[in-house]
């Protein structure tokens, strides 16, 4: 690798892309086999793919971190990283948009239509009121469910995530001010807040399954509820892992007041999951 006199950075050949593709091959094949009960090959393939993926992530990010810390990255590359992270977050927004779209479509179109005159003969007596598990499942007492109240755990979780957005910003200002102990303290608090959020989310799911009879299989309400909050929780998990990596890097003395896009990228991502949560809180929990 070198930075040419004109300022161009040339990445040296790298084995990590092919390692990553190998991981994805085993991972995707494993998922297919696991879902179709082809065992134990499916589980083994899944585990192998996951293991290679972890190996790839450590290796690839290790190279990038090493290059960054060696001062090989110039201003132009920093701007490239900013553009790319912005567009990546935009792609994530569109991924959630698909599931929000499904929620809105079900509430505004498909459920009311199932209760209208056209369907009166097929689904007699169906009230078509949200929340619903649909005309067929609603008629079955086994599928009766209660919804999750908004002002218990979900409200606490909202506060937790909003607070974590504040702590990560304080940490960022501390990094710019070169106050390392304050940086590490508030970054640690952010990770803790994320972890508590996830723990409460797990508790909430257990509560939904055992007390409310609210399940993934509870018709379109259960589908949208669990897929939206589930994918959000998955993204919080990723964000918390990324924050943890950044925390360890801060403890090791990485990042400078004027050169720390790795930190900022993760902070952006964290704000993104925060905003998604606000959408969830309003449309999934409050406006039931």
């Amino acid at each position: 690798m070198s930075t040419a006199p004109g300022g161009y950075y040339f990445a040296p050949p790298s084995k990590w892309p092919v390692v990553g593709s190998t991981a994805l091959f085993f991972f995707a094949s494993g998922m297919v086999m696991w879902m179709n009960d082809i065992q134990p090959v499916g589980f083994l393939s899944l585990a192998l793919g996951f293991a290679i993926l972890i190996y790839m992530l450590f290796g690839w990010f290790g190279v990038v971190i090493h290059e960054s810390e060696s001062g090989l990255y110039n201003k132009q590359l920093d701007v490239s990283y900013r553009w790319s992270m912005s567009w990546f977050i935009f792609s994530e927004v569109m991924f959630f948009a698909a599931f929000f779209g499904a929620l809105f479509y079900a509430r505004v179109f498909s459920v009311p239509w199932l209760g209208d005159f056209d369907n009166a003969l097929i689904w007699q007596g169906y009230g078509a009121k949200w929340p619903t598990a649909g005309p067929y499942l609603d008629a079955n007492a086994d599928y009766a469910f209660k919804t999750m109240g908004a002002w218990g755990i979900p409200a606490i979780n909202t506060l937790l995530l909003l607070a974590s957005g504040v702590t990560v910003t304080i940490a960022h200002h501390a990094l710019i001010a070169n106050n390392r102990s304050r940086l590490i303290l508030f970054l640690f608090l952010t990770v803790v807040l994320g972890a508590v959020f996830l723990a409460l989310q797990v508790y909430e799911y257990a509560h939904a399954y055992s007390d409310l009879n609210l399940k993934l299989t509870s018709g379109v309400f259960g589908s949208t509820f669990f897929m939206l909050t589930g994918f959000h929780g998955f993204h919080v998990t990723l964000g918390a892992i990324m924050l943890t990596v950044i925390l360890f890097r801060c403890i090791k003395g990485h990042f400078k007041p004027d050169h720390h896009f790795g930190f900022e990228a993760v902070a952006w991502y964290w704000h993104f999951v925060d905003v998604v949560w606000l959408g969830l809180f309003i449309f999934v929990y409050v406006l039931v």
Partner: protein
Amino acid sequence: MAHDAAHDHGHDHHDHGPGPWTRIFTTTNHKDIGSMYLWFAFFMFFVGGAMALVLRAELFVPGLQVVQPEIFNSLTTVHALVMIFGAVMPAFVGFANWLIPMQIGAADMAFPRMNNWSFWIMIPAALLLFGSFLVPGGAAASGWTLYPPLVTQGGIGTDMTIFAIHLLGASSIMGSINIITTILNLRAPGMTLMRMPLFCWTWLITAYLLIATMPVLAGAVTMLLTDRHFGTSFFNAAGGGDPTMFMHIFWFFGHPEVYILILPAFGIVSQIIPAFARKPLFGYASMVYATASIAILSFIVWGHHMFTVGMPAAGNLFFMFATMLIAVPTGVKIFNWIATMWRGSLTFETPMLFCIGFLCMFTLGGFSGLVLSIAAVDITLHNTYYVVAHFHYVLFPGAIWGLTAAVYFWLPKFTGKMYDETLGKWHFWISAIAFNITFFPQHFLGLAGMPRRIPDYALQFTEWNTISTVGAFLLGFSQLIFLWNVVKTIRSGEKAKDKQWEGADSVEWTHLPSPVPYHTFETVPNLKLAAPAH
């Protein structure tokens, strides 16, 4: 620059230490990766084409002769997926890799390692897609649109297709992020946005469409997966969902996707026609704005794929008029291409022939698209061969001929060798005639009411089907001339000039030798005076 290049050319062979195999797996060079994309796409083009020929062989005469209906349905599905995700999109990314850094004066793509990853992710995706033919139940047989409830009933092959789509989507998103970042951040001094060659502009907008829609497709197929395996009810009316919901989400992706398949071809044509008309492109700025308008409009027309599903009349009307609106910026483009040729000093080498073929045939496909956009008319034409004729008119002479023109136009620059002009002309004329023999009769079949995606048909459709099949095999044969011409060029083509086409004015022709050196710009070039004024 010429000095740098000559210097580079000298040690081209020992410049990149590792052997050819290590180089394929580990390369971070945009030209290596571009070539890998192009060869992958070429291979998939022939595989997808062979699938189409099996379909046409089955439809040669009525009755079942060649394949069982299940296999026929799988081949219909995988032909489309292979051509869209395996051939056309990777080929465009291949050209983007080769051309964009050179055209904007950058050393390489913004993220060379991620660039290689976006290529290599396609390999497991292709393995899953082709592997699905071998599992019990066979490959997905639902059509590439994967509509529930049919797709919910599919076997393991359907899951493999879903994961293949996930991987291809990840590849596209990474490739697009790379292209956008490269264009926005790595332009050399002087290369302002409004001086960029149109290929860069159309790719910038295409990449935006990809990033906006590929995640939506990922969401849609994820919902299919959970409906299939985890008991969700997104697309199941009994649980309060709706199969129509899938169609909405899918086509929110699907309609921008068809512009993803054509916009880079618009860019290619916008560079080749001026080169052979020896005139600057007419209406450069309006071309940029028209491309952007097409992209924005593409997000609000998806319902025209669903006129027959029972949307409210207001919905049908909205989607009908929004769709017709797209004819305006597209018309601007067609006008500009013709105006570029007007009183130009025209010559008709192979790339120009394919561009003129593109203009004529793509416009016909656009017209049949307008016919289909009329909601009332679409009720009778929906899911007939008229639709098949329409989208093959925009995709084959549109996307494929745009790519073919690009191959002939830039092959001398990539390889330093000139293709065989006679073979190229044979390729064009046989393709042009065979294409119309194949697909023009399908308009008649559709108007007469022949439904698509069926292995058998009523006797009155026989003549045009037979003619169409003859045309299809001729069309397939003519692509072998293409392959032969490319191989022959690489192995024994005559030496090409640095500026092979006197009217070409983008940086790769004006600043770089043929073949271009392995590393194009080792220092930042100054394009302040050199960039062409449009």
